[in-house]
């Protein structure tokens, strides 16, 4: 059980994270990954558990917050709210905005609590499984995760692959840990330990997003009246099953690498449309079309913690940033973390529960407040964000070099965003590239140069096979189609 002391220590970060997350969820223009990135240097000053809970709170909060503007304005502040907007905004137009908002919050809460339990149950088991793995298995798993990140839920896999390779190359900078020789560090002492993760992440996700959305932050759209908030018992009963189904879909999608919250919401809405008894409701404001997707996006956001904490493999940008946070605090997620600091995992789980509680409170009675924030003077917002990013990076290392690096990665993030390249694979590559290379080299060293021995390792064949299948799937599908046409 959670001790009072722990709850007290986590309540602050959970509440702060949840509040900030709701804020960015409400405000269009800056997403959760960017906010988490901007908070990364500041979180460095906190205890590891508080830092992780804070960042998780931001991510979960954005899922709650995006539903608010999605329903009221059809203008979601975060991608996953788009699906909720479909039915939710129609409910708002019918004067039932309050009920839709309440159902969205309650469904998210239900999904959050169930998923927290799921994460608590599954993650240690996964980490235990990973404990007996040799270097060859680890390398194969990283390869599979990388391929999955590039292939699943990625509309443009070639560009994702290019970004992964770019990230892997950025990960080369520093020192070759095999022989200790400097590698691609341009003779700069600042680069001896590699490119700083903080300027990289804050630049790509934080500054890059600010630059790309400059003056794109807009507000002041017509807001539908909220009306009655507390749903009737019949409405609650009708929403329970969709919320549970949404949770199941979301948790499954979230655990997959590349599982985006948006994908989970879309799948949930499709499922609800199919199982609905009264299909005519869809398109005219169906409450189950809010409950399902909202549960799904929250569940998938939280389920992303299972592969991240269990194996150290991030499935989406926000998880990549969170992995960066773990690394900065000197924690390697996975089996080692469970051995060295089991209390950290417990704290994270309770932090998840607290963040969800805080979000329920922030979103149900205080909905009006968040909506009012849309009228914020936006001329203040971008300078504020830029200052947070720059001072955060500078405070973390007190190196002007890191700020210059921040500017460089901000520019890179801006250009890549404009050219529509995905960014998460870069962070994945930077963080996991060295791990992959190290394990691959050690694997061959253990095998004394005999590559065939490695194939006998338990995970190598299945993981590499699955990776190949994922990579070649579009080709196979095309062949099948061509064959079908010829017949």
């Amino acid at each position, binding site marked *: 059980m959670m001790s009072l002391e722990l709850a007290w220590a986590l309540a602050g970060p959970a509440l702060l994270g949840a509040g900030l997350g709701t804020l960015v969820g409400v405000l269009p223009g800056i997403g959760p990954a960017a906010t988490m990135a901007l908070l990364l240097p500041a979180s460095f000053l906190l205890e590891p558990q508080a830092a992780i809970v804070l960042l998780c709170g931001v991510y979960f909060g954005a899922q709650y917050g995006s539903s608010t503007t999605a329903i009221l304005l*059809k203008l979601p502040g975060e991608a996953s709210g788009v699906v909720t907007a479909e039915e939710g905004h129609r409910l708002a137009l019918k004067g039932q905005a309050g009920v839709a908002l309440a159902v969205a919050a309650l469904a998210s809460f239900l999904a959050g609590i169930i998923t927290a339990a799921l994460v608590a149950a599954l993650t240690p088991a996964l980490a235990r499984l990973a404990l007996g793995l040799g270097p060859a298995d680890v390398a194969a798993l990283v390869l599979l995760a990388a391929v999955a990140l590039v292939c699943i839920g990625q509309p443009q896999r070639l560009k994702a692959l290019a970004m992964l390779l770019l990230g892997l190359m950025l990960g080369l900078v520093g020192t070759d840990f095999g022989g200790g020789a400097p590698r691609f560090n341009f003779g700069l002492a600042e680069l001896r330990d590699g490119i700083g993760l903080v300027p990289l992440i804050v630049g790509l996700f934080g500054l890059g997003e600010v*630059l790309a959305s400059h003056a794109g932050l807009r507000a002041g759209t017509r*807001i539908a*009246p909220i009306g009655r908030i507390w749903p009737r018992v019949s409405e609650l009963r009708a929403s329970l099953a969709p919320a549970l189904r949404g949770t199941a879909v979301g948790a499954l999608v979230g655990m997959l690498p590349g599982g985006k919250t948006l994908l989970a919401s879309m799948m949930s809405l499709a499922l609800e449309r199919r199982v609905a008894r009264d299909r005519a409701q869809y398109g005219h404001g169906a409450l189950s079309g809010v409950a399902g997707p909202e549960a799904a996006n929250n569940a998938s956001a939280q389920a992303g913690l299972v592969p991240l904490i269990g194996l150290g493999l991030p499935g989406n940008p926000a998880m990549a940033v969170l992995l960066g946070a773990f690394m900065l605090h000197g924690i390697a997620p996975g089996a080692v973390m469970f051995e060295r600091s089991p209390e950290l995992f417990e704290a994270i789980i309770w932090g998840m529960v607290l963040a969800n509680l805080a979000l329920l409170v922030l979103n149900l009675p205080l909905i009006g407040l968040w909506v009012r924030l849309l009228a914020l003077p936006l001329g203040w917002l971008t300078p504020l964000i830029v200052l947070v990013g720059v001072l955060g990076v500078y405070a973390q290392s007190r190196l002007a070099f890191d700020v*210059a690096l921040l500017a460089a990665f901000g520019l890179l993030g801006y250009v890549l965003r404009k050219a529509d390249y995905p960014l998460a694979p870069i962070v994945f590559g930077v963080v996991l590239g060295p791990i992959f290379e190290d394990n691959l080299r050690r694997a061959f060293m253990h095998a004394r140069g005999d590559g065939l021995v490695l194939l006998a390792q338990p995970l190598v064949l299945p993981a590499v096979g699955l990776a190949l299948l994922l990579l070649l799937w579009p080709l196979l599908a095309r062949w099948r189609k061509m064959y079908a046409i010829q017949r």
Partner: protein
Amino acid sequence: MRPSDNPAPAPPPDAPCSPAHTVAGAAAWAWSGNADAASSRDTVTSSAPLGPLELAPTAQLWGLRAVAWALLLLALWVLTQVGQRPELALGSFTRMGPGYWPGLLAVALLGVALLLLWRSHRAGWAEAETAAGAAETESAVCAAAAPNAGQPRAAALTLAAVLGFALLVPVLGVALATWLLALLAARAAANRWPHALLIASALSLLWLLVFVLGLQVPFQLLPPALAT
């Protein structure tokens, strides 16, 4: 809150984003002009219902190619480094030297960059197969990040401000550099100069208080020349 609390200058967000906000969609659109090649690929024409365009896709396609060329150059540069530098010895697959992994990556990146360029010049992306799905998902995001004019200049000014901070902080100290950064960033965010001055002063004071008094970060606030 009553709706009248909030005057509505912005257009209603009901208009759906066109699929052209994704490169897949954009490419499909751009190449649908080259009718013969595109229409022979049933996937391109049938699966991407293209609505009215709000954003010129050519800019995105141009950016796509520019990035691909940059990646190509990067790969070539790494390859020459691996070839020339003795400390980046290749070794062999089973006994990798420090140059093996970089070399492998460079070859892969070279291939991917070439493929990107080739595909972007060929009629119809293979990715256009997923254009319908991509458009559905990604165009939704564009509702949040609305297209806007005058943005590159604002971005350039903000970037210059950040770079300026990096260059000036050793000379001016943190306080002054922060104020300058805030001033330029506020100006970039479409504030007029007097307004930007106000915002910059308020924000930099606030953040310095937070960092120095709140978080106890030992900043060199004053110009180093003055402090000694």
